[in-house]
């Protein structure tokens, strides 16, 4: 074990956030295969069971897309472009392979752009369905088997059901630990700031599950022991979006005089709330979690006899979080060129507002260069709800 394993939780999270992929580099030197992945839809349990070190790719909001421009159109999701740009610049040069799950057009339609330009020894596009009925569950299990087969071939080892079951337990434990940390944000003032939490969330997705769990545990212990922040008289904000993975956004909220107390992000609540059921066939539980429990707009939810019931099925969890975390206002932060999130804006905005919580809708690039206008809008929103 190297020195990077011995520091305190928050300090370690800060370092892993700032030097994203540092631990993966170390593990690579130790002989571990490193598999990168995109999106909340990659079944990390399978990667863990395979014995590889998974790392979720992130973008870099404070870096302009340069090299990636030559290969990927500007009409693609700016987050995807940023992550791709980082990849082609070699920021994830430690990767032995990548998994690209079918989340949205920006990922699906650029699969060949990624695979041919990165040219990694292992590549897999996981064709996750958009719908969730019985046939889709069976189909999901089929594509998981194909995925497992390609990994086994690449690694030269068998991925057993027992190993998958153990990985499911480990990831469920990881999710439980992260939820415990979130609970500390229910207090007023929250015991951990939105900026600190962002660092923990980002650091956690760069680590193998056991190390991620140890990090979260140490952060929780540290935060519980330290004195609570003094300023409790601030508005409590929730942020909703997909992969927001840079502290610039929580900083914009908290520097404007609010607390970011909870999120519905694809690196946060979206992935840490739903667990995998421990089913006899472990793939059944995985298929059900990724199709039916993950609440992301690329999964079509058709439940409900009326439109209002359908809204509850799609967004009911948001109202729950708003109540649990005593949220005063929600910020819907959507990237430009995002059809899955963009088409939901009127529905989700009016749904949340119908419960009495004001909503600020922001559409922006994935770049710190455009944040000045975002900050102004946030400040105006906080003034409005004051």
């Amino acid at each position, binding site marked *: 074990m190297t020195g990077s394993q011995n520091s305190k939780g928050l300090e370690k999270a800060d370092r892993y956030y700032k030097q994203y992929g540092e631990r993966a580099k170390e593990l690579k030197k130790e002989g571990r295969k490193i598999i990168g992945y995109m999106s909340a839809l990659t079944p990390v349990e399978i990667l863990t069971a395979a014995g590889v070190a998974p790392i979720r790719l992130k973008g870099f909001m404070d870096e302009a897309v340069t090299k990636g421009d030559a290969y990927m159109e500007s009409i693609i999701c700016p987050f995807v472009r940023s992550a791709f740009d980082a990849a082609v610049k070699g920021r994830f040069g430690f990767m032995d392979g990548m998994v690209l799950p079918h989340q949205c057009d920006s990922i699906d339609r650029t699969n060949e752009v990624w695979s041919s330009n990165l040219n990694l020894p292992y590549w897999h*596009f996981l064709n996750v369905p958009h719908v969730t009925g019985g046939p889709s569950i069976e189909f999901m299990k089929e594509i998981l088997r194909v995925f497992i087969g390609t990994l086994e071939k690449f690694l030269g080892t068998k991925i057993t059901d027992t190993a998958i079951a153990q990985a499911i337990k480990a990831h469920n434990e990881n999710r439980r630990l992260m939820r415990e940390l979130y609970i500390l944000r229910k207090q007023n003032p929250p015991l951990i700031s939105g900026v600190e939490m962002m660092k923990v969330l980002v650091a956690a997705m760069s680590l193998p599950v056991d190390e991620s769990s140890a990090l979260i545990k140490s952060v929780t212990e540290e935060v519980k022991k330290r004195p609570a922040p003094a300023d409790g008289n601030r508005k409590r904000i929730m942020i909703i979006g997909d992969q927001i993975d840079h502290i610039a956004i929580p900083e914009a909220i908290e520097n404007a005089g609010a607390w970011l107390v909870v999120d519905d992000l694809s690196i946060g609540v979206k992935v840490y709330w739903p667990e995998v059921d421990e089913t006899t066939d472990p793939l059944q539980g995985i298929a059900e979690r990724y199709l039916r429990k993950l609440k992301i707009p690329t999964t079509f939810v*058709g439940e409900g006899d009326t439109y209002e019931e359908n809204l509850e099925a799609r967004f009911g969890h948001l109202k729950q979080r708003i109540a649990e975390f005593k949220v005063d206002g929600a910020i819907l932060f959507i990237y430009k060129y995002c059809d899955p999130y963009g088409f939901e804006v009127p529905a989700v905005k009016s749904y949340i507002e119908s419960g009495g919580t004001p909503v600020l809708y922001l559409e922006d690039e994935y770049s710190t260069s455009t944040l000045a206008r975002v900050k102004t809008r946030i400040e105006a929103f906080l003034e409005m709800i004051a």
Partner: protein
Amino acid sequence: MAEEKKRRAVATKTAAGIPKFVRGNLSATLRAKEEGKKVAKAFIHDGHDEIMRAMDIVPAWGESFSGVCAAKRDAEKFLQKAESDNFSRSLCTYATCHIGFEMAREEQGGAMPEGAPWGGMGRPDMILGNGQLLCDPRFKWPQALQHYLRDVPVFVTNMYYPPWDPNVDHHEQEKFYVKYCTEELHETVKFCEKVTGKKMDWDRLAAVVDLSDKTWDLFVDTYDLRKAIPTPMDTGDAMNTMVPITFNIGTQEAYDFYVELNNELKEKIAQGIGVADPEKYRLIWAAGLPSWFALNDFQYFNGKGAVFPVEVTYRDHEKIERLDLPKTNDPLERIAWRWVRYWTHWYDAARKIPGSTPKVARIIEYFEDYKCDGVVFHSAFSCRSWHAGIIHQAEVLRKVYKDIPILIMEGDIVDISSYNEADTHNRIDAFIETLEAYRNKQKN
């Protein structure tokens, strides 16, 4: 109403009959109620065409409606309407134009919005969508639309095909993909039966599917006539002649249209009549939906002696024999096999060219078969589904053909604010010069 641009002249007489088809499809949705039929807001290439035709469900094509608004240069009011409720201008403008139209109608208590093109489109009784490997709006647009049409039920199917992976044998995966597609289509039928209160007539469905197969074959045979030099029809017309196979597949009218077009093209070939006189350059429209408000640009190309004997866009059909479809008594399984094989049948060709992809393999096949000199792509800013990956396709083509002339045009499908005619024509002029230089280089 915005000033309507002078309609693009078509080279074939048959194509001149297309507005009648489009108007017919729109008016069918308006007549449906008095005829006791249900209207479904539907999408092209979703596998639902034959199901709807066999059940007398009248399709309301949102893409077509928005395309007509764009062609009449009168989409802005609907785009702005959608924008007023926070639909971003960067979203699919087919969707936002149509949603804006429906929003306006609902606000007016169901009265047709003023200036709705060609009488407008009927209010749907159901909304059918499809999560595919093609396009997110196919399942997000239905949800977004339901926000304004709350009493209208939505059903979303999923139809996938094995993704391209040069290292994975897709043949092994086809069966479970087809099984999944078939099951999803059966679920769609159940939904349609529930909404219409009618049972599916399976014999009728089988007959409709057979008619579709025949139309696929005739369509490809007809389009193959465009290999003639000079070509008797180019992409400018094809953006019209795609209407019957795209929006009316499974109907006798669609089949008859291609009989007529086939006859006309044969006559033109016999008489040596081409789109451009003289025909100097043959181009492939390699990807991208057109700017419906700027179809005249095809004539601009033609005026420079450049013709498009072939295009990838809307040529979403293949000779049935080539797809080698397994026999089945279930017409829905037939649709599923046809769907899956339509995509995968280029995979083997792609494997033979290192670094290639099925999309590029297809372009190469057309490029060779139609004796093309250059490649044109169109990148529409509001549509990721057909326009992401164009740079990559161009790069692979350059690896295969070295300094082949390639033009990537930029615009949108519906939103005219993305378009600058002078810039576009300047780029076309420069491209023509490149074609000439390339030709001279090839000679030397």
